């Protein structure tokens, strides 16, 4: 299953500057493992203690995977996976 993964600016150091890269897998977890195989260092920016890092949002097409099974979210051939850093903060 081939998908296209959009990479945010801050992670493009891992993809040689590419804004989007192809990857394969039937779940988000497999897609991330495939990304890691080709772009070492990405996985640890996305996954912590077996779950998606709270600083990143990942979408399959238009859906935030937090509401679709997290790392076990299903992906299908031709899907777009978008990685975006969360924009958040606060005075505490």
């Amino acid at each position, binding site marked *: 299953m081939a998908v296209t993964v959009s990479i945010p600016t*801050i992670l493009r150091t891992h993809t040689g500057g590419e804004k989007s890269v192809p990857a394969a897998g039937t779940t988000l977890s497999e897609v991330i493992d495939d990304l890691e195989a080709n772009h070492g260092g990405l996985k640890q920016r996305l996954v912590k203690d077996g779950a998606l890092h709270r600083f990143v949002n990942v979408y399959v097409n238009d859906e*935030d995977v937090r509401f679709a099974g997290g790392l076990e979210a299903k992906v299908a051939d031709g899907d777009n996976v978008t990685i*975006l850093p969360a924009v*958040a*903060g606060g005075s*505490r």
Partner: protein
Amino acid sequence: MLTIRRDLVDALVAHARRDHPDEACGVIAGPDDGSDRPERFIPMLNAARSPTFYEFDSADLLRLYREMAANDEVPVVVYHSHTATEAYPSRTDVSYASEPFAHYVLVSTRDPREHELRSYRIVDGEITEEPIEVVESYRSADPGPGGAPEQ
């Protein structure tokens, strides 16, 4: 150095005042051409609706980044307010900061009369404050290719 038009600063401060005592947040997008020029003011909803935390709603975030990609824009400024403390990035702000080319602008609304506006780069967890130059228009601030200001 952040060079920014006065009307954008006014809009940013007005947004922060309007949402006080909750934190206000948003982006000022600009062309993805290296000009580092904030142009399109985009106030965002603080999904946390909190006086001590802000967060872009995840669906809004996706829409925003798709829109900027379609327009060849980048987030030149990422702003938020502190409503009871100074305009300096907190540890939380630093841990989330992940736009290495953005100016992180903070406005404090703790004083009801005078706001405090400051700008920072936040890269790899390191905060660097920078001066803010407020201009009436970018044309007069930009000497242009000839190096001389237009008359």
